[in-house]
């Protein structure tokens, strides 16, 4: 049993203040523990120049940050609002060239960050050769498979260790352990990043590492720099198994964010001022 205690609880706004302008900020896919509460706090504090790194794809988190002018670049395999259609602010920014888009593919995102998690220097992958994604990646290389007798080109990618991973957990115990359920992306990002900050849904009475049923989904405090209590912290996205998406709100966003004015009005109502979900 761990006697390590985690960092003291902080507030969502203090948490957002720890995410420095210009940092490489890792976000899990929207259904794997999205801290929307902290995204709103980042917008409130006027974050600038963030370099988003989304495992493996992005959604509302990135679209809000892009629309609010917080983002310099985004690396991921795709950005959309899922069944609510294209991500309007991402799309506009990509078309206007106001945000640098670094296109990747899902398995490259996973492999690069898993290499970072393991402290490996690089990783080799099948596929990708002949894709224009590769043609535009100066940081990726193609090399001969050193273990093959015949010609066998493979793509190699450098390991990725984000500056900060931002996640939303279900539970936090008094030892600082976070429980994220089956959100594997949140776990690998926390392990790979230089530091992680987390919001969490509820307090857990006891030690999460005492219960075999909870340990696989637990992130130990060694990985976590700050944690803030944020009930409904994934809203309006779903926290799978805990609460569903606010479909009305998401449909409203998809419609409103089609224009800059509509986006600004939506932001004003849902993200600035008092955090509705806090």
């Amino acid at each position, binding site marked *: 049993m761990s006697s390590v205690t985690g960092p003291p609880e902080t507030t969502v706004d203090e948490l957002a203040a720890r995410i420095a302008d210009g940092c490489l900020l890792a976000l899990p896919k929207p259904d794997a523990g999205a801290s929307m509460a902290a995204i709103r706090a980042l917008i409130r504090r006027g974050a600038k120049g963030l370099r988003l790194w989304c495992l493996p794809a992005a959604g509302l988190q990135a679209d809000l940050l892009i629309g609010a002018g917080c983002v310099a670049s985004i690396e991921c395999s795709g950005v959309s609002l899922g069944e609510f259609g294209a991500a309007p602010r991402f799309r506009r920014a990509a078309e206007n060239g106001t945000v640098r888009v670094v296109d990747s593919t899902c398995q*490259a995102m*996973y492999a690069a960050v898993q290499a970072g998690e393991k402290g490996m220097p690089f990783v080799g992958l099948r596929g990708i050769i002949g894709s224009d994604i590769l043609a535009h990646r100066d940081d990726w290389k193609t090399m001969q498979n050193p273990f093959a007798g015949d010609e066998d080109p493979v793509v190699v990618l450098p390991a990725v260790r984000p500056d900060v991973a931002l996640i939303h957990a279900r539970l936090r115990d008094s030892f600082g352990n976070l429980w994220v359920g089956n959100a594997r992306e949140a776990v690998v990002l926390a392990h790979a990043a230089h530091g992680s900050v987390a919001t969490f849904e509820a307090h857990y009475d006891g030690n999460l590492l005492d219960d075999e049923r909870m340990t696989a989904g637990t992130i130990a405090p060694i990985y976590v720099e700050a944690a803030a209590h944020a009930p409904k912290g994934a809203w309006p996205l779903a926290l799978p198994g805990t609460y569903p998406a606010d479909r009305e709100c998401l449909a409203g966003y998809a419609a409103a964010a089609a224009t800059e004015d509509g986006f600004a009005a939506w932001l004003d109502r849902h993200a600035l001022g008092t955090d509705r979900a806090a």
Partner: protein
Amino acid sequence: MTAPPTADEFLACVLARTIEGLRNVAVGTSSPVAATAALLVETESAGRTRASILGSRRYNPFNDGGSEIHDRAAQGRIDAFFLGGGQIDGRGNINLVGTGSYPGVNVRFPGGYGSAFLYFLIPRVILFREEHSRRVLVPKVDFVSAPGTSPPAVHRTGGPHALVTRLCVMEFDRAAGGFRLQSLHPGVELAEVRDATGFDFEIPADVARTPAPEPGRLELIRGVVREQVAETYPEFAKTRIGDA
């Protein structure tokens, strides 16, 4: 008396024929018609064909994060998958990234997602795009998210198998690196397909007619399969599948 198939039910039956008899069929996110086809074939086969519906909790066996489907594909354990394309060209190249001269795109699409990996490694990739127009089916894609064919030295166990649209089915000839018209949907004439297709394709002497849904299939779709689909795609199940 069974009501005639809706457009989506018809296409689900067309897609179902492309995956019958396979072991593991995976369906990506935002793909309700392909999910309907995969769950239909799983139900009919009493589970010999296993459908993995991404985004579903009940019909998705993967519990190790989003990388697991890519891991299994790379091991050769996924037999079929469905991909779309903002643009698809006659060489089977697909573009999910955008039009214009990248990175200065004119129209930005969501992105390539898993395609640049999965297209190489899943033996039977079915391209499904309902819209059949020169806007989508172009002579040459503006951006190759994933190539239809690769040089012999490149490790490739997968690739395009067929293209299904609202007008027809085309099969992909990997040796020739191009599409061959397989069947025209009911009421569709060859000239219409020619007019709406921006690339050249082979036309066989006898072009078949895409069959109507097989007896019993509509009833299955409107019954047990609809309930399965509704777990992931409630709106689709309610509005795009007919009443039992």
